[in-house]
């Protein structure tokens, strides 16, 4: 393996040239996204630099408890963020938090148990971040779809309940579609990986000087790991959240069924 390239603040600053292109396009087409672009650039700089220091600290301490605390913190922040993407799901925070904690824990434990990675902070921290991030996106998409479909299909759901179906039976087709929508984007990107796009890990390793086949193997492990984790997070979030639409007497709560005469 060759040495990783030196990247200083000067190089990061130079990359802002491409941000300038984005700002120019926004101005030229009157997209009014200049403010958002500036906020995104500033937040990414502050957040990534801060997390860089945190990760450095965790690496130096070499303490698994710190890793657990960091992953748990990411899960809380992830659940908070994802909740806003599913505004039609009442009380979405708790299902999302459980989903992210479960996906993160199960995936990392499995990777270590299968001997893919050793239980060291330098593996577990970045992998935990990837797992939580991807799990959050998938769970948010699945819950958003769940909320939208329950709101849009309340007549069909009530008709099914009126035929003696339980809440679980009445919502089952919607649960199925919601889960598919959560997991399908990753399946699609896994199918096209290497053909249409190079995934980030592989690009990072190649730029850092890794041998291409080493980069490919690690990327494959990551992709397979993520398929498992997004499935865990989606199914957990959806199964827990679906209960919030119903009362114990198998009634659709009003939050989903609009007022009627």
């Amino acid at each position: 393996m060759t040495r990783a390239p030196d990247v200083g603040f000067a190089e990061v600053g130079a990359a802002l040239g491409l941000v300038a292109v984005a700002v120019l396009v926004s101005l030229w087409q009157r997209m009014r996204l200049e403010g958002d672009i500036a906020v995104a650039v500033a937040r990414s700089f502050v957040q990534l630099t801060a997390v860089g220091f945190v990760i450095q600290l965790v690496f130096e301490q070499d303490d698994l408890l710190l890793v657990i605390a960091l992953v748990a913190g990411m899960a809380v922040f992830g659940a908070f963020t994802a909740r806003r993407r599913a505004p039609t799901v009442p009380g979405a925070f708790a299902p999302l938090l459980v989903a992210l904690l479960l996906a993160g824990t199960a995936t990392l434990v499995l990777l270590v148990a299968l001997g893919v990675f050793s239980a060291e902070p330098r593996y577990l921290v970045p992998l935990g971040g990837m797992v939580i991030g991807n799990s959050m996106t998938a769970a948010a998409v699945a819950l958003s779809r769940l909320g939208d479909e329950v709101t849009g299909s309340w007549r069909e759901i009530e008709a099914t309940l009126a035929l003696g179906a339980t809440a679980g039976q009445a919502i089952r087709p919607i649960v199925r579609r919601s889960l598919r929508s959560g997991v399908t984007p990753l399946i699609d990107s896994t199918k096209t990986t290497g053909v249409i796009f190079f995934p980030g890990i592989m690009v990072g390793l190649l730029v850092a000087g890794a041998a291409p086949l080493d980069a490919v193997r690690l990327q494959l492990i990551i992709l397979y790991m993520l398929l498992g984790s997004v499935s865990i997070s989606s199914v957990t979030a959806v199964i827990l959240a679906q209960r919030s639409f119903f009362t114990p007497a198998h009634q659709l709560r009003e939050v989903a069924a609009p007022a009627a005469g």
Partner: protein
Amino acid sequence: MLFELERVRASRGGVGVLHDVSLALPEGSTCIAGRSGSGKSTLLRLLNRLAEPDSGRVAYRGRELGSLDVLALRREVALVPQLPALLPGTIADNVRFGPGLVGRDVEVTALLDLTGLATALADRDTDRLSTGEQQRVMLARALALEPRVLLLDEPTSALDERTRDHVEETLKELRRRLGISLVLVTHDFAQAERLADRVVRLEEGRAITAGLEPAPASASAPSAVR
């Protein structure tokens, strides 16, 4: 008494819809008539516990609804909702759905015949049906549960006059042949008089008149609801 409501209050979307409604609905055919927004659909949904009152008591055959098995209640007191409420799939899929939940099969063609649908339509997708046909499928689907009471929410509101007359005839025929009780919600007062033994008028969430005639004698089997 089939249903008893005592000082029932109910709301939808935080707005009061029913205000201290007290009613006794005997066996037979009852129409709840009122303008849009008068609370009649909400009242109907209370009768098979698709909705819950804020306060007051609702009883079915002398027993409070809360003390009954809600799933068995909904099979015995079957609701035919307003359109559109068919499940994806064929007519036969829809008719079999309810009984299938309790592991029972049904004679689909007999039910289609009973509700005035051509038996050849059994395998037709529900998205290829006219509104009148959809209404009849919903009726057949509810009858597949072998209910003792049918709750009908504006069963002819989306139909033209001729189809409406057909559905009304079907309902009368069902009443005669199967002896099941009907509670029907409508905004059409003329229809209420055509179909019902008695009419309850709802205005702004209050029962204005309850023109209850003596209930016709009906030989009714013991309730399956526990």
